[in-house]
């Protein structure tokens, strides 16, 4: 375990360098939480309905706080990092070491996420609960949510790593990263719950991995699935992780054959 711990420590140390960025991240999240609150209060007020698309106002606010937290927890720099290392040829400095680069990156990211989570989670939850009426839905739901969010972290890493591998064949990868991030924020349920979409789209999303990264863990916390539904979703998360990891190890081997290690 000491390699994993070492990588996580590196991640924490590197993340700690960006104290100012973390502060900005927290402030922006809190500001958007406030905006979100005002917007939806107005929507619920005008419509005169207590429940929209199955959500009360308090549930929706809770949804938003948690989706921010899960996003912080699952976020990874692998796409940016790998594409940059490929283009500049610095990936070879890691390949010349007895490590599996993606495995190392996962644990490094785990460290930086851990730090970010601790610093970020507390103000979000406090302000969400005290100012905006975020709900506590019980210990069972919290436990199920934690497990689901943990799997979401692995799943998002696997999915991002899978996307990142494209950089081995395409030199300019920024466009793809932006497109991916845009799609992700909608398909994952980060911006609003996927239940707001028509039935047809909800069906489509359920066949994609994205919703298992944010939407599903948050819905789990809100108690929308029940215990068995939640466990079933975790199984799907695990299946996605296995599928993606298999694809990654296959593509990685091909990538190594074509990698030209430019520069130097």
């Amino acid at each position, binding site marked *: 375990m000491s390699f994993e711990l*070492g990588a996580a420590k590196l991640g924490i140390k590197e993340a700690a*360098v960006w104290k100012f960025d973390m502060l900005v991240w927290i402030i922006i999240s809190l500001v958007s939480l406030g905006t979100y609150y005002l917007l939806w209060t107005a929507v619920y007020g005008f419509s005169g309905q207590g429940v929209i698309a199955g959500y009360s106002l308090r549930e929706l606010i809770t949804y938003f706080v948690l989706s921010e937290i899960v996003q912080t927890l699952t976020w990874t720099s692998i796409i940016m990092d790998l594409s940059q290392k490929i283009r500049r040829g*610095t990936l070879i400095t890691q390949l*010349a070491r*007895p490590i599996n680069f993606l495995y190392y990156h996962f644990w490094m990211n785990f460290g930086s996420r851990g730090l970010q989570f601790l610093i970020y989670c507390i103000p979000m939850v406090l302000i969400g609960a005290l100012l905006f009426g975020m709900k506590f839905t019980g210990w069972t739901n919290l436990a199920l949510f934690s497990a689901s969010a943990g799997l979401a972290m692995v799943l998002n890493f696997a999915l991002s790593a899978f996307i990142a591998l494209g950089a081995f064949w395409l030199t300019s990868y920024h466009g793809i990263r932006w497109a991916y991030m845009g799609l992700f924020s909608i398909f994952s349920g980060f911006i609003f719950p996927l239940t707001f979409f028509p039935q047809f789209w909800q069906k489509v999303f359920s066949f994609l991995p994205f919703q298992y990264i944010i939407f599903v863990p948050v819905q789990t916390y809100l108690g929308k699935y029940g215990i068995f539904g939640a466990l079933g979703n975790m199984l799907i998360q695990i299946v996605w992780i296995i599928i993606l990891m298999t694809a990654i190890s296959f593509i990685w081997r091909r990538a190594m054959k074509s990698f030209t290690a430019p520069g*130097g």
Partner: protein
Amino acid sequence: MLLIYPPANNFGEAMAIAIEVRNLKKTFRTHTREAGLLEAFKSLLFRKYKTVTALDKVSFKADEGEILGLIGPNGAGKSTLIKAMCGTLFPTSGTINCLGFEPWRQRIKYVKNIGVVFGPKPLLWWDIPAIDTFEFLREVYEIPEKDFKKRLNRMIEILGIENVTKTPVRDLSLGERMKCNLVCALLHNPKLVFLDEPTIGVDIIAKERIRKFIRDLNREEGTTFVITTHDMSDIENLCKRIVIINKGAIVYDGLLSKIKQKYIKTKHLNVKFSEPHKKFTLNGCKIESENEYELTIEANLKKIQIGDVTTYLLKNFKVADITITDPPIEEVIKEIYKK
């Protein structure tokens, strides 16, 4: 850990082979494009590809415990060869065997045993002090705490980087970073070390210390080194044997001392006289400069032997002193590169 491998000059035993490269070929496909905006746009639609042959039919061997110099002009293929030998580049054809491994097939098992410096490419995590990278490498290579401390302290002392290792890497100068890179490559006491321009940006004093450290490590631990550099004094100070590579092919493989014999066709004589000298003429000799008491001659060894020149001088002149020198190694290398 002392003397596990046969030391470099232990000629009594048959030495094991550390590297064997056979018929190695590597081609790259790149796209070309003229300058200009219109051309940039055109290249989006129609890409012109061109194949570059970086290495062609490269074969050589290196013994365990050897310090091998790999030299050649820019773009010769040195870095490409190093990358292939580290298992980070898949060859187009040919085979490599290093320490009994096939580098790119058994990468993880193999690279445990090697150390690499890739020129100025940073081996360190950029935003944190170098010492944090070293600590991580201790976990990566599973170096025992005691060995880690001993080696690190020794290298810090030799390279004079006590304070450097505690500053975030991005704030370091090129030379300071290169010294830390070297520590990264050697911390785990690898059997085989590839140094691609390890002395780039390093000052003279540090260069000398690095060279001495490499020699010491080679003698004490029997570490094999492959070094590329554009600084011929690195080569003269470290390597008995060199491989010269030009346009992707090996043009010389042998002792450094032999290269002079093979390629040097002239010698320089500086003669001092005890009285103003009379006119000097001899077939095969060219006067480079002269004054009343001194004369510099270039002797063409194809036409005349050096002994005949000195005999002639001693017989006919009042000679106070003679110094015979080879042309500098740079001159020789330059001639080979030009071919």
